[in-house]
């Protein structure tokens, strides 16, 4: 989202009303996939809050991210069922392979990683959602294979 679009979107909310904060954060994230510095600052200016207060609120919730999602967005379910079936292993494999932590995007912009509380597919545990597609019964080995099979998606010109 460019700056003009951002300003346009932000200005649709009444200014100076801090109670609009969460909904405005959601709108901006929905439109641009994440909350950029520019976005946080624009929202803060519009609602007359400090950027640190806006960032403070946004970072309290798991739903907001502060880096642009990668070309392949990976979500690891950390719900109870998945946990019991070893989703921590899966998560750690991804962290190791991609060298990023949940909430981060790899430097080349190829991958982003996120943990989610429960994707509602407990019978398929442990689940990884890659680019919106569900992958069931994951373990460390399958996770590595998944990454290899997805290489095309993550290549720059793909």
């Amino acid at each position, binding site marked *: 989202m460019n700056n003009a679009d951002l300003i346009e979107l932000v200005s649709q909310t009444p200014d100076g009303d801090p109670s609009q904060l969460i909904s405005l954060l959601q709108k901006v994230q929905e439109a641009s996939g994440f909350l950029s*510095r520019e976005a*946080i600052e624009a929202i803060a200016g519009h609602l007359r*809050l*400090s*950027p*640190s*207060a*806006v*960032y*403070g609120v946004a*970072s*309290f919730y798991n739903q907001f991210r*502060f880096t642009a999602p990668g070309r392949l967005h990976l979500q690891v379910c950390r719900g109870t069922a998945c946990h019991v079936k070893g989703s921590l292993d899966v998560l750690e494999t991804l962290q190791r392979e991609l060298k990023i932590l949940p909430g981060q995007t790899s430097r080349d912009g190829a991958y982003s990683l996120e943990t989610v509380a429960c994707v509602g597919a407990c019978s398929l545990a442990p689940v990884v959602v890659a680019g919106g597609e569900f992958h069931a019964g994951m373990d460390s080995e399958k996770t590595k294979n998944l990454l290899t099979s997805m290489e095309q998606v993550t290549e720059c010109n793909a």
Partner: protein
Amino acid sequence: MPQIIVNGKSVHTDPHETLLEVLRREGIRIPTLCHWEGLPAVGACRLCVVELDGQVNLVPACATPAAEGMRVLTHSPRVVDARKTIIELILANHPDDCLYCPRKGSCELLRLANELGITERTYRGAKIHHPKDVSSPSLVRDPEKCILCGRCVRVCSQIQHVGAIDFTSRGATALVAPAFGDGLNISSCIHCGQCVMACPTGALTDARHIRRVTSALEDPSLTVVIQHAPSVSVTLGEYFGFAPGTDVDGLMVAALRRLGFKVVFDTSFTADLTVMEEAAELVDRIRNHGPLPMFTSCSPAWVKFVENFHPRWRENVSTCKSPQQMMGALIKNVWAGNNGVHPDRVFSVSVMPCTAKKAEARRPEMLTEGRFDVDAVLTTRELAELITMKGIDFSTLTPSLPDHPFGTRSSAGKLFGATGGVLEAALRTAFHMLTGQNPAAEPIHALRESEGIRELTLKIGDLELRVAAVSGLAAADRLLGEIEAGRMNPHLVEVMSCPGGCIAGGGQPYGHDATAVASRMQALYKVDRGSVLRFSHENQEILRLYREVLGEPLGETSHRLLHTGNGGHHVR
């Protein structure tokens, strides 16, 4: 009058008092962590809990209004246990680092652990691992020592209207930090240090310059010169057993000599010089189309506040360097030459009540002839530490006088240490500049309150001079609002970033002790009452400096040494 029963004894309460206020008035010590005098209660830490008859749960005294007939137990076993548990839980993820912590002598957490008799580890939690933020020229943030009391966050946003830091994330990863977890250096922080004053632990402390100073003192090729700010002499004694408000000027100078400083100057001298320059600048602005109002520039956190949040008022800030920087410029560019020392061999130190002075000294427009005017800045706290470290028995020293020529000051210069003092000093001299006569040097009581916006209209000759003073930046924001709305129209406005002025600056003893601050203020007024030299323009050394070096206020040499250049203060 409503009564409550405290530990079996009947006690009167005033309307709208909280339990905490009543109990403290009664001399009962109730521990607190999140509570901060002057800010609304948040009831977050629960350390102040007491037992109330008829209530199942313990209640926080800080957030509970005292009501007729309440029966309160302040130190029942249940209460003490609850408090102890809170501290034990805080300690569970706290680094075991007291021995190496800058706050070990003054830490509230350590004191509470001690008072509650905690001698064993009850809970073991994962320690927080987070790098220190040393990006700021003024402060160090050490999130590992943060106990999330929120005092800094509230002081920064509510008292200073800055909001540089806030709670981020949550649960075990919760952190007090600037937006995006950035370093303080790229946040909106203005370096005032009021968060440092509020922090109970070692999570926010000075960017320390002690090492720099001791190495300079040990270097035989350097001449180390020191200056001390007006408010330091009325505060430093508190570290050495003197009652708040004792002026230890002579002892302090003696201690500085004992520490090895070759030359000791008094920043109040350059406060006098600031008065001369600023009064001339004001008269010039009034006669030659402004811009008005003129804002004082001696509080660097205020200057930064204008740059960060009110850039439209930048041109209105006086171009005068602060007294610290003026002294620094004089030491290297005048004193050194007169005393056969090469300016590169001078190491210039200041003792300040202020953390923002550390940042100010590093600003690009604070170089003269390519040299920093000031090389290191110690806070009052750091000076006390240094004196103690060097084994100096402070109270038994023989008082000493500062050196010539920049050790002679009028008491007007000394007044810079309290809010309203710059105005009071400047008005005395502006009056003289405009009428050729001295005003009666009566205290201007209208300026001597420490709270709120103070306004005064003064008839000087045929000019109606309107001035205003304010301290604390939330109050400064209000004042700017009044001016912007056209409700106030002053010629000259004094702004001190710290509530009360430098006597309560961010580099002074930790915490919030309103009584001590009031005593420091009275001490400055006493110096002024007892002084034979009460006008900056009668300071013979100032006059001599103009005769021999500077020419006249706002002259060419003044501009080169004492002002920040035509573009006003540098803006990044």
